[in-house]
């Protein structure tokens, strides 16, 4: 492990670029030489998660649930096939469970052991979700986490934190914001933030988007 003998004085993800970069390049060269990888497959994988699969998928699911009570019921009963109706399925979303926020209960999702996250609906997890501070704090002080994100939950609201320790992937169905009566599914999807589907945020308010 010669590439990590030096000292780190900050919370990385931007450190060691050149050395790590060289190592990744070396690896890709060797794997290609040995015929273990198709370099074009790497491009497709990257393109998939950089441009196609992301939190806009989840926003479509939430907006559908807000406008279609039968879909909402199917989503809460068995989320994987319900999400599949919109064409979202596959890796790291084989067994999805949707959990509903209510005025009395706020849900938050974490993976304290690694980075489990529902890829088909949210894409790849952000750095903070995978970071030590979130993984450590979410299960002990989730209200403090919400403060880190800049909002406070009413002190009387119950909070349930779902630690994704197996292959079930949790997906929060946030509450539909007030003042959106009559909005279309497309308009509602604009209000749904990634963090509101993890439980570290709320959907945008109508005033925050231009209709």
């Amino acid at each position: 492990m010669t590439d990590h003998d030096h000292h780190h004085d900050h919370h990385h993800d931007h450190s060691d670029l050149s050395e790590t970069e060289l190592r990744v390049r070396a690896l890709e060269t060797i794997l290609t030489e040995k015929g273990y990888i198709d370099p074009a497959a790497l491009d497709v994988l990257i393109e998939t998660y950089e441009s196609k699969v992301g939190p806009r998928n989840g926003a479509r699911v939430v907006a559908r649930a807000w406008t279609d009570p039968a879909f909402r019921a199917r989503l809460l009963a068995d989320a994987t096939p319900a999400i599949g109706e919109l064409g979202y399925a596959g890796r790291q979303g084989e067994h999805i469970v949707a959990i509903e926020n209510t005025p009395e209960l706020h849900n938050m999702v974490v993976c304290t052991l690694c980075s489990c996250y529902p890829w088909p609906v949210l894409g790849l997890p952000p750095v903070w979700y995978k970071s030590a501070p979130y993984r450590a704090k979410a299960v002990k002080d989730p209200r403090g986490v919400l403060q880190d994100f800049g909002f406070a939950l009413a002190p009387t609201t119950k909070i349930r934190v779902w630690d994704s320790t197996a292959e079930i992937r949790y997906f929060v169905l946030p509450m539909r914001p007030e003042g959106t009566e009559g909005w279309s599914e497309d308009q509602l999807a604009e209000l749904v933030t990634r963090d509101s589907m993890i439980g570290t945020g709320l959907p945008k308010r109508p005033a925050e988007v231009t209709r």
Partner: protein
Amino acid sequence: MDGAHDMGGVAGFGPVRPEPDEPVFHAEWERRAFALTLAMATPGGWNIDMSRFARENRPAADYLARSYYQIWLAGIERLMAERHLVEADEIAAGKMLRPARPVAKILKAADVPVTLGRGGPTERAATTPALFAVGDRVRAKDMHPPTHTRLPRYVRGHVGRIEALRGVHVFPDSNAHGHGENPQWLYTVSFSGADLWADAPDPLLEVTVDAFEPYLERA
């Protein structure tokens, strides 16, 4: 294993720092490391539990010093070295020093959508009835295997309530070590925050974990 990866409730990491308008990747090498990791599972033949163990099974200082994709990179380097697919001297040299080992299959670009779409479902047919039912009180065992497990330390020894049955799933503790899928009933178990964290009780906090049947005993 009781490693640095098992972070629930650990103090001292400071506040969560969200990054506004965060990109999916922060550097080109992250893109390539991510994609290499996904692609190499096909010729490598390892499963997700083996991958997780290869990432987490390292000294705490090493785990904590690496960024997320650096851990992924270290993980595939280990998995490949164990199978003599690519060895450390080759990475240091930046080129192939030994001929390729035969592999059954590689991931072709054209197969990526189908492979991702299929994913890796872990649910298996039940062959035994579930030991516990919704509402049962169970204790998470106080176990500390040196091998891979998905029972986080912060619930061990605590009593919770069966919240849901999730079916029978591949058991990571076996699958990570090549001992087969050994499928087990999986439960969502809820714990009260006040019980887990007696020093900082939040009476309105509930924490759930997904626990395999061998992790639990009746309380």
